[in-house]
């Protein structure tokens, strides 16, 4: 009995230590003066693998989601004779919700899991320890550039997603189903607000970028350095990050538009 209590206590301590470690990992990775000469190429490299390489999946998904929105929205709106509202419907769904959220989910699956696996493998092959023993802080050298790359990339990806999605909605709504070209854009313009919709969408995706990248990096950094441990950490990154994004999205939506 007492053994179980002790085991519970140990698990609790380990959990708290884990949360604290995640916090300190980020703090130590971000605090401190960066040396531009060394950090810049590292950041570029990570922006490339995290951002540029995610562009294709973002563009393709954005286009299709926009096209589906156009199609579904049209069939519903046409019953009310309100197909002119297709523009704002597509644009607002994308800018406020789908752009940031779907981008974050895709990002967690595409880039987040890759980050976790990469860092997990670096840990398993003792590359992180080796850096430490060389007197190079792996938090600065490995974690920090990846964090910033994710933080900068995701809002850009979300913007691209929304823009491509709106174009997809335009293709289906205007080119295919025959909604009036002028009405599509003008009704959209009179309903979409720069500050309220676009800036809030960017703020959302910045928050998601922070959380998803952080989770991915910490899961990799703290994983058990075995093949099972890495695969668990990768799965856990996708699951945790997706749940965190959806939960946070509700909170942010309530704060911004509620």
């Amino acid at each position, binding site marked *: 009995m007492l053994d179980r209590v002790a085991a519970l206590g*140990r698990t609790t*301590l*380990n959990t708290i*230590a884990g949360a604290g470690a995640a916090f300190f990992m980020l703090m130590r990775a971000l605090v401190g003066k960066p040396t531009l000469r*060394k950090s810049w190429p590292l950041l570029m490299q990570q922006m490339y693998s995290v951002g540029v390489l995610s562009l294709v999946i973002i563009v393709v998904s954005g286009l299709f989601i926009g096209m589906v929105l156009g199609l579904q929205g049209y069939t519903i709106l046409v019953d009310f004779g309100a197909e002119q509202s297709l523009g704002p419907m597509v644009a607002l769904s994308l800018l406020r919700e789908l752009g940031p959220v779907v981008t974050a989910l895709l990002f967690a699956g595409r880039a987040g899991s890759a980050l976790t696996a990469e860092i997990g493998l670096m840990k398993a*092959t*003792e*590359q992180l*320890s*080796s850096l*430490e*023993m*060389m*007197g*190079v*802080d792996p938090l600065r050298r490995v974690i920090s550039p990846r964090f910033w790359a994710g933080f900068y990339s995701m809002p850009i990806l979300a913007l691209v997603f929304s823009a491509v999605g709106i174009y997809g909605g335009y293709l289906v709504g205007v080119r295919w189903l025959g909604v009036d070209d002028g009405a599509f854009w003008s009704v959209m313009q009179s309903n979409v607000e720069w500050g309220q919709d676009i800036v809030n969408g960017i703020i959302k995706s910045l928050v998601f970028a922070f959380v998803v990248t952080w989770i991915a990096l910490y899961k990799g950094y703290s994983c058990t350095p075995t093949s099972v441990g890495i695969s668990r950490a990768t799965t856990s990154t996708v699951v945790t990050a997706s749940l965190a994004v959806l939960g946070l999205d509700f909170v942010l939506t309530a704060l911004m538009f509620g």
Partner: protein
Amino acid sequence: MQTAQKSTSNQPQTHSNDEALVVIDNIDFAHGFGAHQVYRGLSMRIPKGKITAVMGPSGIGKTTLLRLIGAQLRPQQGTITFAGENIHALGRSDLYELRKRMSMLFQSGALFTDMTVYDNVAFPIREHSQLPEEIIETIVKLKLEAVGLRGARHLMPAELSGGMARRAALARAIALDPELIMYDEPFAGQDPISMGVIVKLIKELNQSLGLTSIVVTHDVAEVMTIADYVYIIADKKVVGHGTPSELEASDDPLVHQFLHGEADGPVPFHYAAPSLEDELLGVDNAR
């Protein structure tokens, strides 16, 4: 000839007049809030400029010992000093400064998989100095020459054999001319030829560069030929130490069992378990 002293006391014993580079004083260490005790009252002295071997059965936490010396892990009790400084009392930046003076050869080599052999060896130099690229090139070529891999500098780590990867990692480990180099199982999984190469390299580097070396291993035969001093760890503490010849002559049963690779002895063949009869009968009863 004297027999090996058994470490009944916890005090590090002075065995010669050598100055000690690393002193481990009575440390306790456990993983994960006491879940798994690794050391209890472990003490050691690593003499400067010598090769010290640390041996012991698998799973005894020899790698943990190196991580403690590198201050990647922190003992719950006791101190470790490197060149007179208590490494666990140092601040973060001082510690990173100190780590430039030591280096470690990991079991897997731990080469950075996204760089060529050349860039791997150049990495610590580029990180810690502002030297122009021509000088770095010279240094890297010299280091690679020392391990016989100058011709392989454009290969990626994935293209190297296990033995070559370890030699490349060794070149990287000595790139900054450290005072202390720690070898984690340098002989594990090597064929006899590359094993011979590594034994030769450890000895040569120690002599030519005046390095202090700690070799953690369980390959008795190889390490006994090059070690100046040997510690044997078992059961969370040092169970025997001395020069190789002293240990060979030791009549301590544990030391004897380990050095001669006997299957049963003070370190039992069986993992701790209830007796076989009880267990079989217990199964019978349950049925």
